[in-house]
């Protein structure tokens, strides 16, 4: 594109400058990281949002931490156990200090649990995680006991999502005081320096960190929403690492010797909900002549199976996702707790799908519009077009409509669509909570099926799931969850497509340990030898 000569000249002219800049940056151990989504607050209890939660890991810590595979490991607590079905005892880490030098004790934990449900104007609070705890007892400064009203096996996992704040600074602090840095004082490896909404977050090293010193002095997280801008920032050296590399650029960047690209399967599944809420045709589903049908085809398990068999998952993974995805058989990749190794992705079989449709009474297919978000999940608008291709080959007349996330999710929740492309990231890292939200018979008061936009219902499955949720024994519980998963996937309660693979790219000299929770943590970024 550009005459080589000019390029060489430019390199010659700028090389000394560039060298200077690089050595300067390395000596100071200051790094910049390009993030995709904005951080909405520096108050760890204000907004339960993935980018915020990821950022908070630098400044604050939970009692329990999740490692790169979302396994629970000790954080501010060194150990925990269920004393009985309703009682949990946590032993806290000693000699931990907040950024201002004050020691961390059980008082801070108790205060945090009190603060969490009471953050004014919180657009999405963390109260979901603390609600099961009905009583807190401080035994000594480093032992604390939690009581629940019903057996709550997910308590450790829930508490891993709650960041511990300092009681001293938090008692009179509002969200603004965290944003300004006044109260933003945690025990984590980095301290607050600056927070500019929609623009950047700057942190500096906490040299007294109990877990040992981090390799970086100063972190600058830049918000670069536009994917091309993010890649350009990395290539031009403005940032040393970026998250969510666009799939189209990965192949080329992997070949670039000046970059290191790492990826890992994530906890996010991309799936399809089929609207089974109506007796007759759901919205946007018609017979071939465009008239609504007397029966809702999605209520027929044969139709759901056919729609799953018609999908060439390998083609999606290979062509649309540029191999940065893994064909899905359930709601989480089978490295996670509660997943069944017996479940395999549905085989691509258009002939079989046609046969099933004919058996179900649709020998000539029917007509439907596929709906999906544009820009919410990786390549979502491309995936849905590929799906439309597959369905048009088994005789279904398909149209595609995509919306910005702001429009799409409101309408999907109102069940204004028939065929909905969606995604679900399981932050707890175990399959029961995903099934509970997406597939259990909808009963919002009990927290069941809150996001069951397909309105799939199966009492036998509900019973298994409910039983699993109160079984304290880990092995036994996992068996029940697996059994439930096999049952619901056999009935195609939803159509799993693929698990997203998250990708990070770093400049030469840096090494990132990828994570399943899609978090971008400076603590996982090390200088490579």
């Amino acid at each position: 594109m550009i005459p080589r000569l000019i390029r060489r000249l430019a390199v010659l002219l700028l090389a000394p400058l560039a060298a200077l800049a690089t050595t300067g940056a390395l000596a100071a151990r200051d790094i910049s990281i390009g993030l995709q989504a904005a951080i909405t607050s520096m108050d760890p209890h204000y907004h339960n949002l993935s980018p915020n939660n990821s950022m908070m890991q630098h400044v604050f810590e939970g009692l329990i931490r999740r490692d790169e595979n979302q396994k629970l490991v000790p954080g501010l607590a060194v150990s925990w156990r269920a004393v009985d079905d309703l009682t949990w005892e946590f032993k806290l880490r000693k000699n931990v200090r907040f950024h201002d030098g004050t020691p961390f004790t059980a008082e801070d934990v108790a205060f945090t649990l009190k603060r969490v449900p009471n953050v004014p104007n919180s657009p999405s609070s963390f109260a979901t995680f603390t609600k099961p705890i009905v009583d807190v007892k401080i035994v000594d400064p480093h032992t604390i006991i939690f009581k629940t009203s019903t057996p709550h096996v997910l308590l450790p996992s829930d508490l891993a999502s709650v960041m511990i704040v300092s009681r001293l600074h938090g008692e009179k602090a509002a969200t603004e005081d965290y944003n300004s840095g006044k109260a933003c004082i945690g025990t984590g490896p980095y301290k607050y320096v600056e927070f500019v909404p929609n623009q950047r977050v700057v942190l500096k090293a906490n040299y007294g960190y109990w877990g040992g010193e981090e390799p970086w002095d100063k972190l600058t997280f830049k918000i670069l929403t536009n994917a091309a801008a993010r890649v350009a920032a990395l290539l031009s050296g403005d940032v040393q690492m970026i998250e969510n590399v666009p799939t189209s650029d990965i192949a080329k960047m992997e070949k670039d010797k000046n970059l290191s690209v790492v990826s890992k399967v994530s906890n996010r599944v991309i799936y399809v909900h089929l609207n089974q809420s109506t007796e007759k045709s759901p919205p946007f589903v018609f017979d071939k002549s465009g008239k609504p049908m007397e029966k809702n085809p999605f209520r027929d398990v044969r139709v759901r199976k056919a729609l799953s068999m018609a999908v060439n998952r390998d083609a999606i993974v290979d062509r649309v996702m540029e191999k940065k995805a893994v064909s899905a058989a359930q709601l989480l990749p089978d490295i996670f707790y509660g997943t069944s190794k017996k479940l395999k992705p549905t085989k691509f079989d258009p002939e079989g799908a046609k046969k099933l449709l004919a058996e179900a009474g649709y020998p000539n297919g029917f007509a439907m519009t596929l709906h999906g978000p544009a820009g919410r999940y990786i390549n979502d608008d491309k995936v849905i077009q590929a799906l439309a291709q597959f369905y048009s080959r088994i005789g279904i007349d398909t149209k595609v409509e995509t919306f910005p996330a702001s429009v799409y999710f409101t309408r999907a929740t109102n069940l204004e669509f028939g065929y909905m492309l969606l995604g679900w990231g399981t932050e707890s890292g175990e399959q029961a909570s995903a099934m509970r939200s997406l597939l259990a018979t909808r009963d919002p008061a009990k927290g069941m099926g809150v996001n069951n936009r397909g309105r799939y219902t199966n009492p036998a499955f509900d019973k298994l799931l409910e039983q699993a949720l109160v079984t304290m024994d880990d092995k036994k519980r996992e068996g029940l969850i697996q059994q439930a998963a096999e049952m619901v996937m056999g009935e195609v309660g939803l159509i799993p497509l693929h698990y997203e693979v998250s990708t990070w790219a770093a400049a030469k000299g840096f090494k990132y340990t990828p994570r399943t929770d899609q978090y971008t943590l400076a603590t996982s970024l090390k200088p490579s030898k």
Partner: protein
Amino acid sequence: MTTAAVQTPFQRIATDFARSRLAIVGLLMLALVIAIALFAPVLSPQNPYDLAQIDVMDSKLGPGEKSMAGKTYWLGTDDQGRDMLSGIFYGLRISLGVGVLSTLLALSLGIVFGLSAAWFGGKVDTLIMRVCDIQLSFPAILIALILLAVLGQGVDKIIIALVTVQWAYYARTVRGAALVERGKEYVEAARGLGLSSTRILFRHLLPNVLPPLIVVATVQVAHAIALEATLSFLGLGLPITEPSLGLLISNGFQYLMSGKYWISFYPGLALLLTIVAINLVADQLRDVLNPRLQK
């Protein structure tokens, strides 16, 4: 030669127009573009909007590569396996159609409101002009997003959005020009003769306001096409399965850096040529139709 004396106005315009070779090139290009748009279904090797005809396994092939079935894609394929050449032909059709239709509609609306404002004055004028103010102060993108939310996606919706964005501009221009014309003798003469308002407006005022307006509108077609492309780039507007040029460019945008230039380069080139052709023609038309520049 005595032709100069007996030339009809049309002939005069044609001769003047032909004085610029650049404009002739523009006109030829425009004719070609229009022909392609009209005959896209005949010219295209594939119907890029028929999902059954495209295969994701053929996606991202380079120019001249062969598909699984042995078909050659001269300009390559996009990320869905759509033949770029067919995509561009059909995209041209949509882009040009959207541009022309929205401009015509906006122009008609603008004429009606602009003339009314100039003719009736007073409260009508104020009302229309303040509505114009509102209209012109809204970012086009926000209007499009709101319309998209309320109406859904589709070619008709994007036309509505473009008309909504553009009409006020014409209304202002028409009003300005009409105010100037209203003061001229011929209008007063017509009034003196007792002709009806509608008659004066449409038979006498409009023809005199129209020539500059046509030039503006020609440029606006190009602008409407570019605006549609921008909206598509921002993810608003047309359904993704029926891409216009703008949507094709936007889809290929992310592949530019990875070296798959053809997905956005060729549609970009087509868009560029179309807009440049329209502007070249409009430019010369402007000079030709402006009586003050006649020697």
